[in-house]
């Protein structure tokens, strides 16, 4: 029997729940020669700010057991280039759910970028990053306090008349459920969790941090159980849909995330070691569903 992999996020149908996470798949275009983008349920585009940003000095990447650190620092061409060039170019070759990921350093910047994304015809969903831990004085402050997270949510909801808003949460908090509830109460249409965990490595020969930025976000297979726990807690505490993210590497992880309450599942760091992992997961899902006697993925969301 044909398995139904489709899911629905706030009324938007995704052919499957597999979505490359923001920052680990560029603007999709970078990979269009290497794989068939149209097998992907959605693509979360690289985090975008009002102005173009170069980001942090190199080294920006450090290898870790079961994962990696990144301190890219939101390198991006700015919101104007996103809506005028990147999204239209991607739309020409991709028919799935295009998710714009918006970052900001002030409420004004969030408002400005979200308003532009809201009127861009190629964008299906807006994901607001309030959790990027890399940038000095950056998004961290918003994502780590319930009041500030609610403030950003309300601000962007006010300017977005067409598109649904997902708030992407930071895991570097004491109680993620409190922040998730604050975003839901402020009008968020959905939540993506989690972003990376703030981490650090030291080069013991040089006696200095490996990353030029000293600290960076840890992601990869090692964070999967923690991310899953947070998805479980938030999905059971909130009514709005959740995109689960953190350490997903295979179809099995996707099923686990969905059982914990995720409607869609993002794949992040694993893309960097295996650029073909997302299509591989999509291909792997039906046989795993068969083994588990699952006809439709929608049936397992939040069943644990």
């Amino acid at each position: 029997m044909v398995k139904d992999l489709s899911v629905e996020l706030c009324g938007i149908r995704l052919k499957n729940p597999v979505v490359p996470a923001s920052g680990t798949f560029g603007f999709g275009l970078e990979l269009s020669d290497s794989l068939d983008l149209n097998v992907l349920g959605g693509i979360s585009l690289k985090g975008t700010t009002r102005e173009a940003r170069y980001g942090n000095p190199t080294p920006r990447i450090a290898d870790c057991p079961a994962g990696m650190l990144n301190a890219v620092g939101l390198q991006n061409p700015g919101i104007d280039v996103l809506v005028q060039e990147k999204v239209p170019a991607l739309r020409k070759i991709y028919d799935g759910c295009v998710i714009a990921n918006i970052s900001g350093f002030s409420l004004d910047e969030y408002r400005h970028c979200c308003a532009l994304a809201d009127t861009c015809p190629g964008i299906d969903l807006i994901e607001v990053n309030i959790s990027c831990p890399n940038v000095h004085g950056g998004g961290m402050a918003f994502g780590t306090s319930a009041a500030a997270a609610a403030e950003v949510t309300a601000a962007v909801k006010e300017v977005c008349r067409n598109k649904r808003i997902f708030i992407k949460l930071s895991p570097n908090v004491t109680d993620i459920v409190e922040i998730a509830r604050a975003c839901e109460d402020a009008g968020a249409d959905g939540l993506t969790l989690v972003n990376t965990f703030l981490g650090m490595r030291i080069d013991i020969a040089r006696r200095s941090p490996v990353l030029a930025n000293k600290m960076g976000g840890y992601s990869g297979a090692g964070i999967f159980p923690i991310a899953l726990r947070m998805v479980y807690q938030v999905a059971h505490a909130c009514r709005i849909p959740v995109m689960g993210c953190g350490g997903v590497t295979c179809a099995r992880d996707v099923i686990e995330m969905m059982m914990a309450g995720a409607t869609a599942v993002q794949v992040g760091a694993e893309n960097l070691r295996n650029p073909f992992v997302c299509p591989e997961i999509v291909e792997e899902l039906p046989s795993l569903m068969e083994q588990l006697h699952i006809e439709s993925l929608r049936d397992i969301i939040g069943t644990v």
Partner: protein
Amino acid sequence: MKEVTFTVLENSPLAPRTFRMKLAGDTSAIRCSGEFVQVAVEGKFLRRPISVHDCDWETLTLVYKVVGEGTAVLSAKRPGDRVRALTGLGNSFDVDSCPHKALLLGGGVGAAPLYLLAKELCAQGKEMTVILGFNTASEVMLADEFEQIGADVHIATMDGSAGTRGFVTDVLRLKNIPYDYFYACGPKPMLKAVCSAIHTPGEVSLEERMGCGAGFCYGCSIQTKNGPRRVCKDGPVFKKEELIW
């Protein structure tokens, strides 16, 4: 970009902590010199970027230095073992930009990618001078290989134990070497010195800690005169004029 599982044919020391690994497998995604491959290493999360030293229809040869745990794992591979790699990564050296006389400068293991380049230049009938720099005589490698394809080879060592004492730029200063274009690969201070000492146009191959190696994670970006560029995708080879030191 293509993921290939290679079989190790040979993996032997070439110089202290430096190995030559010859691999059999599908090399169809590798187009020309200057490219690199991303090698998967057991027990390590990220792949290791290693330049293409030589390549034909059936084999790929890498020359790499053991600089950490990842390359140490690689050095333990034996003939018959499997090695997975993403192939066809990065841009390439531009052989057509060299009018007649090429100067190739390699520092340490930076000599590795210049070999396939030298073969391409040779095929175009261009004259070649190769200057290789090392710390000491025991580290000298690949000089014979370059000579065999008709290059005029000079050696520089920091301690003077082989060739000219000093840097590759000291060889240039002391000897009257004819060239109208240069290609360089090696440690950053060497590349910086080369770019300021040489007044002809040329290009250098850069190294950077990489994430994906294929241009979509933006982990290896550098600032250039033309704005931010990804070492893995827009490079690793950059024109001298483009770089900011």
